[in-house]
Every structure is written in C-alpha cells, then in structure tokens.
C-alpha cells in the first residue's frame, strides 16, 4: 500500500475515533443517569413538592422554577442578542469600535459562570434591590447566554445572501424594512439554533442562580417574578452536598438530574422541530 493511502487511513481512523469517543461519552453519561434515576420517576415525583427534609416527595417546584428561570432568560436575552447582532452586522461601520465590541462579547462568553452569579448578586439582588428572585436569576442567566445568542445571530445574519438585501433595497424598500422583512426571516433558523444552545446552558447552570434566585427549599409556588424559586440544578447540588441525608437521597438526585436532562432535550427537540418547519417553508 502506498504511503498516501496509509496516511489517509490514519486520518480517517483518527476522525472516526474522535467521533466515537464523543458519542460514547454522551451515551454513557445519559445511560448512567437514566439507569440510576429512572427508579424514582413517577407521576408523584413530577407533581408533588419535596417533604420530610427533602428526602421524600417530588421535585415539582424545582421543575417549575427552572422553566421560569430559563424562559425568563430567553425572553431577556433573545431580543437583546438579536438586536445587538443586527447592529453589529447590518448597521455598524466595520472598524475598530465594532472589533472591540466583538472582542468584548467573546470575553463575556469566557467569563466563569460564578462571576455572573456574583455580578447578578451585586447588581440585581443588592443594588437594584430586586432580592433573590426569578427576575434577578433570569436577568443573570440572560446575560450569561447573551454571547451565545449574539454569536449565533451574527452567523445567521452573515449567512443571508447579500443579493437579497440588494434586491430589496433596489426596489426602494427602506433598510430597516429590508432587515425586518427579508434578512431576519431568512436568518431565523440560525438564530433558533443559537437560542437552543442558550436554553440548554441556562437550564443547566447552578452558579449564576445560587445567589440570585434559587431557594434551598420552598413548597409554595412563586406568585410573582419577585419570588424565590427552587431550580433543578441547584436542587441536585443541595441534595448532593448540603443535606444530612446525602447517601439516602442519591436516587432523588439522579431522578432530578434525569428530569433536567429530559427538560433540556425536550426544549431542544421543540426548537429543532420549529426550525426545520421554518426551513421547509422557505423553499430554497
């Protein structure tokens, strides 16, 4: 066999191996959580609050809390992120200022999540006096996922062919209308992808909500955005580290983790379905 083919096979082998490793890792983690967690999953587990010092009962307040926090984060970050991306990509003169903003956004993406937590604590909880509540947590998570959404939106906007913009402008359509009617609709699937990643990240983070929104335990459901909530990742963290029944509650911890994973995958699935639906209706 020629050296060229050996090299090619080596390369393909390495590629396959990497793909295999990643897939195995994902499957192994999911499998492990599933096997350990499935035993506690029941209708009651999903619909009842915890009881007996959180060693029994369900996780309903935590599921609800995570749904609230995640939706809140998306509601805050999506418009802000998309509008920033539109500014950076469609309006701003490409130059030093824009480059500095982009670097800033990228740095933001690299900031550890605990720093976001402290920032949220300082700004929303203490300075603005929102207290530890859904609003503070959602804002903090919103900032956390902002870079992801800006990045994905910019990519999506860049992928819209320049000829579409030119065609619209040449008809005498104003720039903002061109963006609203032509550019945005065509960028939407890409923006959705970014939001999916953002949702996953927001739902799974513990550190940003630890000081800003998450309650150790509440059995009552939040009545407004100024109430504290339980949240799935924090609940896992609490049960696994802070209780007096750490070993005893292992199944509940795995069950909660399983729910968190299922929730994130469920949201992803919905977003993927919507995205492919939009794509299909675009026909190009």
């Amino acid at each position, binding site marked *: 066999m020629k050296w060229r083919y050996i090299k090619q096979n080596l390369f393909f082998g390495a590629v396959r191996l990497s793909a295999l490793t990643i897939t195995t890792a994902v499957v192994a983690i999911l499998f492990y959580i599933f096997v350990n967690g499935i035993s506690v999953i029941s209708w009651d587990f999903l619909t009842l609050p915890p009881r007996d010092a959180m060693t029994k009962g369900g996780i309903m307040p935590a599921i609800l809390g995570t749904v609230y926090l995640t939706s809140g984060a998306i509601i805050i970050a999506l418009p802000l992120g998309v509008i920033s991306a539109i500014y950076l990509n469609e309006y701003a*003169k*490409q130059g030093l200022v824009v480059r500095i903003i982009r670097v800033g956004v990228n740095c933001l993406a690299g900031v550890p999540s605990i720093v976001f937590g402290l920032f949220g604590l300082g700004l929303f909880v203490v300075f603005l006096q929102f207290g530890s509540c859904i609003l503070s947590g959602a804002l903090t998570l919103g900032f956390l996922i902002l870079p992801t959404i800006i990045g994905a939106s910019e990519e999506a906007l860049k992928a819209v*062919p320049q*000829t*579409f*913009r*030119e*065609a*619209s*402008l*040449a*008809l*005498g*359509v*104003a720039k903002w*209308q061109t963006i609203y*009617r*032509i550019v945005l609709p*065509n960028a939407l699937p890409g923006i959705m992808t970014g939001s999916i990643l953002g949702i996953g990240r927001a739902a799974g983070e513990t550190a940003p909500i630890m000081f800003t929104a998450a309650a150790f335990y509440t059995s009552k459901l939040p009545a407004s955005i100024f109430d504290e909530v339980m949240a799935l990742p924090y609940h896992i963290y609490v049960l696994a580290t802070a209780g007096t029944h750490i070993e005893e509650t292992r199944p509940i911890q795995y069950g909660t983790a399983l729910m968190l994973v299922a929730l994130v995958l469920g949201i992803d699935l919905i977003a993927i379905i919507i995205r492919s639906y939009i794509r299909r209706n*675009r*026909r*190009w």
Partner: protein
Amino acid sequence: MVTIQDNCIIKVRNVDFYYGKFRALTDISMDFEKNRVTALIGPSGCGKSTLLRLLNRMNDLIDGSRVEGEVVFEGKNIYDQDIDPVEIRRRIGMVFQKPNPFPKSIFNNITYGPRLVGVRKKSDLEALVEQSLRQASLWDEAKDILGQSAMMLSGGQQQRVCIARALAMKPDVLLMDEPTSALDPISTAKIEELIEDLKKRYTIIIVTHNMQQAARISNYTGFFYLGKLIEYNPTEKIFTTPDVRQTEDYITGRFG
C-alpha cells in the same frame, strides 16, 4: 458625443467615483434620453456597473465609497443632502446580473415592494401582479403557478420575475446590469424582445458585454475604458463609423 436637448431624464455631470482611494470613474458626463435604451459597453473593470449603481444610489451601501459631481434626475441632484435614496430607488429600478428572486412565491416576490409602499387591497395586488408579469412576458408561463416558489423557476424565468418585481414599483427608469449574461440564447432573446417593448414606457439603461445585443436593442451606446467615457453616440454610429479609434478596436475585437 451626444447631448440630448429635450427629453433628457438623467444628466450625469463631471462625476468622479472612488472606492476608498481607488478612482473607478473619472469625469463622466452623459445624458440619458427618456424612453430610449442606452447601452453601456467596455472591457471588464472599466466601471460600467459602478456608473449604473451610481444612478440609483446603490453605491451608498459600499463602505468608504465617495461621489463627486452631480447626477441630475428630474432637475434635482440625487446626491443632494435632502434627497432620500429610498425614494430615488423607487423611481429608478434595477435588475441585476444574476437573477436574485426572494425565497418567496412568485406572487409575493412581485407584491413585496408595492405592499410596503401601501398597496393593500387583494384585488389591486392581483391586478398589479398580472400587469407586471405581462410586461415581463412571463404571465402565460406563470399564471397557474403564482403560489410556487420563485426559486424553483429556470434562470431565465427567475430573471423575468426580477424584471416584473422591479416594474411593479412603477419606476421611470430601469437599470439593467448584464441581465442576460447568465441566460441561454432563448431566454436572452425573450428578454431582448421585452426590452424593445418596455422602452415605450420606461427609460432603460443596460450594461452588456454582448456587442450584438447592444447593437440590436439600444438607441445610444456609451463606450467606457479605464473609468472614462471614451465615446457616447447613437448606437448606429458607434457600430458603423465610431469617432474614436479605441471604440472601433473594442467593437471589432481588436482590443488588447
């Protein structure tokens, strides 16, 4: 050089155009007659597209570009401070080299512009679609598939959708940048026929690399070289007894 006395719709006066530091057009002065076809010819890179895009301010979109001189449309310089480029582009439509329909149905491609300027009634929109498609001689082929995506049509049909889309805005002038260069001979012939027909109502300025096409369809022809207007004369004169030697060399293919 021709100077058009009456019936002049666009007057270009001493225009220089810069892409950053690079001067793409030098001291262009030329008049465009109403309801006539004017062809712009010249070797690649000589500035034909640049001039065309200057006439409806499409060059505004390019960062770092700059215009000097005047482009007078209906007695006003379109580069004056108080002129809205959006308004200019409504009056001076454009068809591009590569067909660029929107990823929408044929119907929505054509009604996209008119809807945004306030045509709302369904019957008005339908009438407009039929009228524009007829003018673009696409009606017979498209009337039964108006709901289909324009992206599914052939290149020649797509280009005619783009022409219909431009006409639906009821412009006075139609700028065409090599509208047939991506098309086969039959589609090309169709579009040439169409141009012949359209000049009754519109002023057409067309860039082309095809000498026969310029000779066939245009009333006036301007020959450009390296950003300068070398010769501008009635088409017949350019193609039989040009004033300038360079023009003759280019037309007869002896250029090099």
